[in-house]
């Protein structure tokens, strides 16, 4: 393996995309992903690609829509509020069956939220995010090395199925530095196959290509959606990626992705040192979700603990997989700056022993809110009331 180079996550990602053959980038400044467009601004020029600092996220994603339609490996990146704006373009990309890469270096939300890392865009990423019945392939790296190596995987999956791919990272992964080495040789864009559906100069006498997402005649849109669903089914069947650690003898199964998985690894060490048998499954593709494997593993453990920087968005998928057969718990750090291993270690014990410490529990919250409302005497106009 090549010597590791100390790199920031965002820069490893940008360089990884270039090496994967990305020759078009459009973006707009937003923390904590600014190193991506900054890196692209000079690197694309160096490799003869295009970089555009767009006037908005909306414009950037539509530039991506145009560029992706030409068959050139193209990407945009942003962070949570910016990705919300990009949903317009993402649904068009999905509806037009265009491969491309969208990166979300997530931060805290909703609204302006925070500029620190977050994971609260899980649902948006895995359910499509914009209008209409669609999915995007979602890859969740958990290290600088994966950030750098996933763009190639993302482009390949995206082109194989003509489904937009998303890399769902977070501000911690984007900002942190680690040793980086690429596990693939740089891709020569000229060596990639010519996309028969691409628009642009017609040098082969092919018939004209049309890129569109509409089907206004009766039955037309339904046929398009169903045809696309066939590819979704293949992706769900064939492209699930996950990693397992210590699952062989586990009593507690952690499910965590991205930076939460990193903190969970440290938490496992703490818990294992105390003699608690804890294992982890880390979904690497969030869609397709490793539901089948989680169901298998859940049947062998006493408790399943979801660790995420959101209020149970991923847990919805875990619950669907576990299907009530094993108790599931949640350690949530939504809006926090980072997940803390020591706290997760406590949550592991709580999940195993039926305790509440470090577990997020809606029933308890409802009770707390009920008491607060009673104290406020149901006075919605009272200063400071949030009822």
């Amino acid at each position: 393996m090549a010597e590791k180079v100390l790199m920031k996550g965002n820069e490893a990602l940008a360089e990884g995309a270039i090496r994967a053959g990305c020759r078009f980038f459009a973006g707009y400044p937003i923390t904590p992903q600014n190193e991506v467009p900054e890196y692209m601004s000079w690197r694309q020029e160096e490799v003869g690609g295009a970089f555009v600092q767009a006037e908005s996220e909306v414009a950037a994603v539509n530039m991506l829509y145009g560029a992706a339609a030409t068959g050139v490996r193209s990407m945009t990146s942003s962070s949570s509020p910016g990705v919300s704006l990009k949903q317009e373009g993402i649904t068009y990309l999905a509806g037009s069956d265009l491969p491309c890469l969208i990166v979300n270096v997530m931060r805290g939300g909703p609204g302006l939220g925070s500029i620190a890392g977050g994971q609260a865009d899980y649902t948006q990423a895995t359910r499509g995010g914009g209008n209409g019945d669609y999915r995007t392939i979602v890859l969740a790296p958990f290290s600088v090395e994966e950030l750098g190596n996933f763009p190639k995987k993302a482009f390949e999956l995206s082109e194989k199925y003509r489904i937009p791919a998303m890399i769902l990272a977070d501000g911690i992964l984007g900002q942190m530095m680690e040793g980086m080495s690429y596990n693939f040789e740089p891709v020569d864009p000229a060596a990639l196959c010519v996309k028969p559906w691409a628009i642009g100069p017609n040098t082969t006498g092919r018939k004209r290509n049309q890129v569109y997402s509409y089907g206004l005649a009766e039955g037309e849109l339904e046929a398009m959606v169903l045809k696309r669903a066939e590819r979704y089914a293949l992706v769900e069947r064939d492209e699930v990626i996950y990693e397992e650690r210590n699952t062989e003898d586990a009593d507690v199964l952690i499910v965590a992705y991205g930076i939460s998985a990193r903190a969970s690894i440290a938490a496992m060490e703490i818990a294992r040192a105390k003699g608690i048998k804890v294992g982890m499954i880390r979904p690497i593709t969030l869609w397709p979700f490793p539901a089948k494997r989680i169901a298998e593993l859940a049947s062998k453990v006493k408790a399943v603990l979801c660790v995420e920087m959101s209020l149970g968005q991923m847990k919805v998928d875990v619950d669907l997989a576990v299907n009530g057969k094993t108790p599931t718990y949640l350690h949530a750090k939504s809006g926090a700056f980072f997940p803390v291993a020591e706290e997760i270690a406590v949550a592991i014990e709580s999940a195993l022993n039926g305790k509440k410490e470090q577990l997020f529990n809606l029933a308890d919250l409802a009770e707390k809110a009920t008491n607060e409302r009673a104290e406020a005497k149901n006075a919605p106009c009272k200063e400071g009331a949030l009822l």
Partner: protein
Amino acid sequence: MNAITKRPESLLDVTMHYCPGCGHSVAHRLIAETMDELKIRERTVVVAPVGCAVFADKYFNCDSIQGPHGRGPAIATGIKRAKPDSIVFSYQGDGDLASIGMAEIVHAAARGENITVIFINNAIYGMTGGQMAPTTLVGQTATTAPKGRNPLLQGFPMNISEMLSKLESPRYIERVSVDSAPNVIKAKKAIKKAFENQVNKIGFSFVEVLSICPTNWGVTPLKGLDFLREKMMPQYPLGVFKDEKESVAQKIQEGK
């Protein structure tokens, strides 16, 4: 017998859905003739808008992409930057370009993208049913301004060609009309020039086409033409607002 005219090769032989009297079909024909004359059909991409011209991709015999409302210039930017040899034009109406897509058109123009934009101004939203547009005249009624556009509430109409001509990068901006044979000939010249500029790498070129919408204006086509000449033209005077012979790159090189 000699045929003195024929359907341009760049215009497909399909029935258009435009209403009688609508200016879109005339503008389409002028663009298609231009594509034929410049022999660029094989490398042209039309960016179809949202609005009445949404099906422009079904009419032009070239590659196409249909995009979200207002984003044509951004999409065109993406195509042109990814494939600089392509000829890209964004075809947009007034709601699309002057309202929801204001940021995209202004910044594509400011960047001086080497693309062509055809802007059809008929002072109303067509496809959605006659709502007020940014270009709707003062006093002109619309389904969202039943008493007529009131400048105190809705402001004054926006003159897009004049606005864009204040930017440094755009090379060519002209407003034309398709209300009469002489004006159609002038419109053709303008459209052709806007494409030639792109072929010759001169830079961002923009043609605003005044057009009628008899259906949503609630008038006959002939009355519509009267309205265009008597009411629209005073607000939107025809003419060239910007015409630079050299590209921005040439100007910088010469230190101008």
